[in-house]
């Protein structure tokens, strides 16, 4: 499976992302101390920058690495390619899932490191407080992205990246359409109490529930990811039978 990992690492051009992440590491490490701007502006600037970087890194996995990972073998006619491999179909599917899991782990680790570098250089309480909040929520954010990946992957395995992408877009349009129908004809009074303040209030009032959510989110998302893996294995098996 190590060979498959290496192949995927090259096929998805993941080395570019690693170089980019290392470049960002040195930029955040050195840039914060060297730019000739006053400290408060610098802190706000870098805080915004780090938030954008973290979001981009996670989006890159979902939008780019994942699609490239699946596309790479399609060009080789996946079925024939899988038969030529010295590993089973299950192991082939597992290698894709593990590759993406490792990508998330790497981005999560890099993000935590960036945040730590920022906090070490930051002298504005507001900025460091905000970023500490983001750091606390980062695992939850990462695991949410993992769930999205878990939902997407079976589509890619079943229909390929092009058709899978279309099915995914179709589903999103469907959900959007249902939403529009609800807004037009449904009871909107339930949204009256919805606001950011209400969310903050809920978090303050129910620290125990929030803590439980933070604790179980990794396990729940891993469970969803595992179920997604089983579904993908079955889909690949059915493709073989057909």
């Amino acid at each position, binding site marked *: 499976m190590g060979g498959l990992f290496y192949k995927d690492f090259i096929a998805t051009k993941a080395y570019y992302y690693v170089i980019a992440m290392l470049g960002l590491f040195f930029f955040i490490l050195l840039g914060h101390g060297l730019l000739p701007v006053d400290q408060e502006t610098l802190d706000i600037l870098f805080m915004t920058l780090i938030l954008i970087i973290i979001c981009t890194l996670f989006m890159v996995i979902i939008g780019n690495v994942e699609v490239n990972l699946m596309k790479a073998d399609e060009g080789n006619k996946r079925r024939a390619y899988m038969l030529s491999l010295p590993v089973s179909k299950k192991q082939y599917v597992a290698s894709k899932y593990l590759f993406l899991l490792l990508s998330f782990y790497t981005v*999560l680790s890099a993000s935590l*490191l960036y945040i730590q570098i920022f906090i070490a250089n930051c002298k504005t309480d507001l900025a460091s407080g905000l970023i500490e909040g983001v750091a606390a929520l980062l*695992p939850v954010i990462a695991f949410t992205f993992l769930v999205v990946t878990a939902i997407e992957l079976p589509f890619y395995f079943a229909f390929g990246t092009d058709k899978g992408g279309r099915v995914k877009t179709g589903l999103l349009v469907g959900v959007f359409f249902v939403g529009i129908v609800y807004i037009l004809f449904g009871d909107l009074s339930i949204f009256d109490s919805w606001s950011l303040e209400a969310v903050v209030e809920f978090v303050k009032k129910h620290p125990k529930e929030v*803590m439980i959510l933070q*604790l179980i989110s*990794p396990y729940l998302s891993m469970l969803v990811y595992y179920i997604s893996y089983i579904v993908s294995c079955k889909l690949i098996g059915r493709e073989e039978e057909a």
Partner: protein
Amino acid sequence: MTQKRILIYSLLSFLPVWGITILYMLCGGKYESNGMNLILTLSMICPVIAVIGTRLFTKEGFGSKENPVMLLGIDLSKGKWIWFLAAFLLPIFYSDLGIGLFYLLFPKSFDGSLPGLMKELREVWWMFPISGITNALVFSFGALGEEIGWRTYLYPKLEELFGNTKAIIFGGIIWGVWHYPAIYMGHNFGRGYLGEPFSGFFVFTIFTIFVGACLHYITKKTKSVWAAAFFHASNNVFFGNTLLFMALSKERVPKLVQESPVFLAIVFIPVCILGIVCMICLNKEEKSLKNKGNL
């Protein structure tokens, strides 16, 4: 060549860590600062960089499928999963046992009124083991960086030269010395204790020797550096949590214990016993392999 490689690896892993920490100290940096936190995190990545550097510099290569040297794979088959589970759980048991032992030796130090943080968090106490395991899993990249260096490179090289027991002792000493600048700054033992910093150096080196034995054993059993990384991360999380939340009345602890690393030395006893058990098991396995003529 093995000795040369050990030397290069040691230089590459020690120089950046010692250099940056000493520089930070000379610039007036304090242990209780975000800068020191960052240095501690980055230090944990230095051993893996040292491994890559040494392997490239000495043209040693990075192994093959038949001979994996970085041990980055995870194989849960043939009952190996139990070692991964142990990696997460053992630190909970030995850190709690250590605290229990301390209370046994100094029963008056137990403060049943649950002071400080413990009082506020009484309702959610049951979450700590799960929270610790989650944190150990999510934040294991630092521990992974260290473990790739020490457990997949230094220890096997030392074992090649001296055999299991001496490898664990020498490896533990090198690993302990690597931490000295941080301990000097106040890591683990704080500042102003009796015999500072040498008593801290001594206690911590003993700790690294025995924890090193556990980590080496678990790496050998699972043939994966991840198990050691999870063990290391879990150890860091649970020792920290246990010490932070223990129901201790410092006023009732004898002055000598309070002002010296004796407190941590006592808490470390269960893990030292576990380390000895691991050393015995490793030696037995080494002997049986020798008898079979595999060595």
